[in-house]
């Protein structure tokens, strides 16, 4: 009797775990499936109630309609330029700042770090108008500069990276000094390799946030020449009057495809980065 109860309980536990896994999978997968499905539906199918969960013939022309409605490839290029530009700028601003805050004691260091963190608490909606005015006075509206400069650094990234640098045991740096390493050697051969998982993770976060960003590119540009994909895709909403969910979703699919690809290829690195950060 006892043995059977144990077996039953084990089986029940396995079943519960499987059910939970299935649920989690569904929560994450269904929205993607729905997006993909809508992207290949006809307009009629998107509006049907009850909704259809399967289509027999895919309407691939939805994608062509995306290309017809917006200058897709020029917007894609803008997106790439903006995202890469931001990532490169942050690389050169965040790493030195984080390193200095973590390693050096200097007059006003604590205050400056506090100030850096304080900027995280200012909502974007509060600063976009002054920022817009500033950029327009400088003649930078409708330029890549206006897309990149507001995000050329990141207080969050500075904070995270500073923590990582601070966690490096003091003895490690001392050992390097005893090994005649210069400050540059210490940075490039010791500290940056140790911080690599954090840097990669922060890079991915920056990539995803800015790739999908809608608000800033929208308010800081006024014509399609420099507008980015999220702005363009949203405008699909309103072409020809009525809401065309199928074209909108086709556009969305094209927008998130690179993000999904990055996730797919960098999966190991991302997991490692997060477990490393959590396990320390």
């Amino acid at each position, binding site marked *: 009797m006892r043995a059977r109860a144990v077996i039953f309980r084990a089986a029940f536990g396995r079943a519960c775990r499987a059910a939970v896994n299935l649920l989690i999978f569904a929560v994450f997968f269904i929205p993607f499936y729905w997006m993909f499905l809508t992207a290949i539906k006809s307009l009629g199918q998107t509006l049907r109630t009850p909704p259809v969960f399967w289509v027999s013939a895919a309407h691939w022309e939805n994608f062509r309609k995306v290309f017809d409605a917006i200058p897709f490839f020029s917007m894609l290029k803008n997106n790439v330029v903006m995202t890469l530009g931001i990532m490169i700028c942050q690389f050169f601003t965040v790493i030195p700042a984080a390193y200095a805050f973590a390693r050096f004691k200097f007059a006003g260091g604590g205050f400056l770090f506090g100030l850096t963190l304080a900027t995280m608490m200012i909502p974007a909606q509060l600063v976009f108008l002054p920022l817009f005015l500033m950029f327009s006075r400088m003649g930078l509206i409708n330029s890549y500069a206006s897309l990149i400069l507001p995000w050329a650094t990141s207080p969050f990234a500075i904070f995270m990276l500073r923590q990582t640098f601070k966690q490096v045991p003091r003895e490690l740096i001392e*050992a390097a*000094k*005893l090994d005649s390493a210069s400050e540059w050697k210490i940075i490039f051969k010791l500290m940056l390799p140790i911080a690599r998982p954090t840097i990669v993770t922060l890079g991915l976060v920056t990539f995803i946030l800015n790739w999908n960003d809608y608000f800033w590119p929208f308010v800081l540009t006024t014509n399609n020449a420099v507008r980015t994909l999220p702005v363009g895709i949203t405008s699909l909403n309103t072409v020809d009057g009525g809401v065309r969910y199928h074209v909108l979703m086709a556009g969305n699919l094209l927008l998130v495809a690179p993000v999904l690809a990055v996730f797919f290829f960098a999966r190991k690195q991302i997991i490692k980065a997060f477990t490393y950060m959590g396990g320390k």
Partner: protein
Amino acid sequence: MTGIELRGVEKAYGKNPPVIENLDLQIEEGSFTILLGPSGCGKSTILRMIAGLERETAGHIFINGEDMRDVSPGGRGIAMVFQNYALYPTMTVKENIEFGLKNIKTPKQEREARVTEVVKMVGLTNYVNRKPQHLSGGQRQRVALARAIVKKPKVFLMDEPLSNLDAKLRAQIRTDLIELHRNLGATFVYVTHDQVEAMSMGTDIVLLDNGRIRQQGSPGSIYSAPRNLFTAQFIGSPPMNVVKAEDMEYRVDHAPHGTVSLGFRPENAVIVSERNPSERGRALFRGELAAREILGDHAIYKFKTACGSIRAKIMSGSTVEYGEWFVGVDRKYLYYFDEKGDAII
């Protein structure tokens, strides 16, 4: 003047009162010098000042007669082994070892030869391409040693390098270190709070307390001729028994003038069943056996007496039963201390 010399060295951290004041210390070239003392007495601080990782607030440090005040840690001709090894986690064993050589631009050929030799010496030939986190504690310890040896320093500084290892490995590496010291002929400065390590490895022991040197000398002289109560009670296991002269039931009539307390080592005590008045040269204590530790080749007995507890360490023989006994000590084994705790000789 060769070796290492500290002259009037003072160290204060920030605005705190100094942890080391006016310290004079000489470490002879080629010696295996142990900085020994209780936790917080300033051993690491002294070592780190010699390494140049901590700046002395006053005084001078000389290595081979050269004032080190403006010499960087890398330029002092020293190597250091840290308690937690401080291996570079993103580098392989080989990269860890050759990092220091690369930084001083040692030609590749020589570098390779030296790394290969050292790796063989510490028995890590099969592990050169591993990262430190995939090594056992003992292997990491050996990488840390190899990283120091490969630089061919004149001085090795070690801060409790064995404290993270289990007892067996510790004993083994202890022997390895003695051998290494003999082979290299370099000066070793070794920090520990473990007197067994100190006694077994050192050629010279510097006993520290509260940032001051209480006694410096060979292990033998520190053991047999302690100059004060602190030294007497720090060295030896179990430590020396110390009793107040005035509390003694049977007075020692030959104690020198000014004696306040008497000491004797547990290993010099004998246990007898009755008082023999004819034995004049002996200090005698009547006591109740309170605890008994049988440790194979010897046993340690703890007695409660009129002047506190007393330990006796007896090499194996018949086991002493619980009850009342007399503990006797030959007068030649007695140490006398005055009221300041200094030995009277």
